[in-house]
């Protein structure tokens, strides 16, 4: 990993831990970003962690750019020694794969797609070497995913699959972005899945939809009353496949404020994960289901 520092205009410093994505790069990036926040440096106004990089916004009238740059480089040295453990939570997100709404949308934008004859799932299954869409869908929800970034638009999580790199799902984005994506679509581009928090433009392949709101500016949804954005970097997500009837039931429960996503507190240790991926995921699932 080769860390790279750059100014983004006169108000940002951008730090790229590694140009390729890995959990190692994510942990180091989050660790330094958290350390910057904890230092409460006068003039630093925002700290934004991303997948394998982070950005610091600052007020150059309060702190000189080169002073801040030097301070960040000092922090990098201590981040290398930091423990790669994260106290976090695992959340179960139900997904209605091959739902009618994303299917209708993907048909409308077929001329922007690599494979105009099939669906996004047909294409993703094929380019990842799966014989059937069912096998591909199973691979998508069988293992947990890690929220490595929240952003793009309000509350949108980027998720990184917790399996060996050789098993990670990778799919190119649309040739040209769509101008429309249904709210709460489960998308995938490159090695990242995402949940589209709001309706709008998008370039990720569409696999399904969740009935669980993850952004609520009105703060009426029971579990979003404290804060309007559900996900935080470091959250772990387990997709749960559901059918149309279960989708409708959860939509009704959310509307009646009877729904809470299934959640459990967990500790994620990167070294333990790398030593035994299946065993670590098994323990995460046991925690989620209270075994």
């Amino acid at each position: 990993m080769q860390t790279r520092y750059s100014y983004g205009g006169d108000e940002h410093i951008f730090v790229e831990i590694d140009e390729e994505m890995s959990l190692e790069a994510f942990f180091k990036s989050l660790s330094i970003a958290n350390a910057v926040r904890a230092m409460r440096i006068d003039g630093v106004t925002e700290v934004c962690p991303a997948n394998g990089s982070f950005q610091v916004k600052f007020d150059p009238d309060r702190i000189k750019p080169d002073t801040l740059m030097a301070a960040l480089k000092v922090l990098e040295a201590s981040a290398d020694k930091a423990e790669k453990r994260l106290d976090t939570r695992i959340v179960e997100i139900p997904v209605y794969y091959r739902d009618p709404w994303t299917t209708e949308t993907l048909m409308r934008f077929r001329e922007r797609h690599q494979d105009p004859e099939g669906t996004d799932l047909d294409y993703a299954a094929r380019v990842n070497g799966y014989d059937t869409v069912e096998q591909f869908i199973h691979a998508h929800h069988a293992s947990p995913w890690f929220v490595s970034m929240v952003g793009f638009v309000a509350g949108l999580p980027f998720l990184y699959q917790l399996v060996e790199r050789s098993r990670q799902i990778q799919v190119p984005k649309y040739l040209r972005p769509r101008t429309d994506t249904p709210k709460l679509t489960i998308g995938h581009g490159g090695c990242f899945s995402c949940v589209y928090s709001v309706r709008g433009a998008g370039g990720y392949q569409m696999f399904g939809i969740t009935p669980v709101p993850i952004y609520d500016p009105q703060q009426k949804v029971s579990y979003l009353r404290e804060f309007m954005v559900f996900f935080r970097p470091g959250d772990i997500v387990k997709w749960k496949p559901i059918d149309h009837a279960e989708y409708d039931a959860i939509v009704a429960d959310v509307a009646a404020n009877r729904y809470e996503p299934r959640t459990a507190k967990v500790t994620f240790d990167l070294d333990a994960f790398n030593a035994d991926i299946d065993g670590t995921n098994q323990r995460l699932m046991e925690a989620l289901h209270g075994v």
Partner: protein
Amino acid sequence: MAFKVLNPGLLTTVQDLGRPGYFHLGIPVSGAMDRYALRAANLLVGNPEGAAALEAVFMGPKLEFEVDATVAVTGADLPARVDGEPHPAWTAFPVRAGQTLSFDYLKGGARAYIAISGGIDTPPALGSRSTYIIGALGGYHGRALAVGDVLPLGAPHAVQHGTEVPADLRRTPGHSAELRVLPGLYWRLMTEEAGGNFFADEWKVAPEADRMGYRFRGGRPITFKPREQPFGAGSDPSNIVDACYSYGSIQVPGGSEPIVLHRDAVSGGGYFTLGAVVSADMDLIGQMQPNTRVRFVKVDMEQALAARAAEAQRLARLREALS
């Protein structure tokens, strides 16, 4: 204390100086695209500089006042009328209860700021009244104004009608502009030739120019140094592993049309960025119409900070003139 929207214009939103602090969750700062113009309009009507006002794009709204108020219009050249009587821009003028504020056609610039004494008193969201339309957050129910909306006003301070911004402190938008750019971020992914062309070519503002970002056309395509794409980045040479974006940063999806991110920026994404427009020139972008001719001018950090200091001085003179 309120006013009613008889006609919203094209895209009129409530904006203040924005909601910093939530970009790490994808919620951008929002707020006036031309902050200087917003500050000037507020100071003219006796409001705090950061009070909420209306930002009207290309076309003015038609508003009926339920209360006596003082109004000022700054930014784009969008001539105001009260019950048909013209009033000069960058100047405080009275509107009485029952009167209608309307606007002639746009003569220059892109965004007019309409400040009303007392400020617009919609409920703040995450500390700001700015409208972030994509996230349905802030402003008037998280959206642009529509016919029949009634917007509340705060309590006004005493103010002198006829107060005006001195001519040398008004920024009047033109048909061409220079935007100063600090190269950086993923600059290294481009060929040297492409870097030179970017600053040498003349660009034009494309029709896709909004609060999220301004798109430009007309320059030569960006070419990239050959490299093996890093894991997770995606297959196009303009792709990177999704990272944070700076306000003002310039991305060039597919190498064809540069996009400068503005106040409603997406907070991150998978396209390379070649640097960022300096903070001092962000207001200027908000006043550029489609087809405005633009040149990007390369600066270093020292020049960027000098430009920032010059803007701060201009603002200090404005405050002094209107105090």
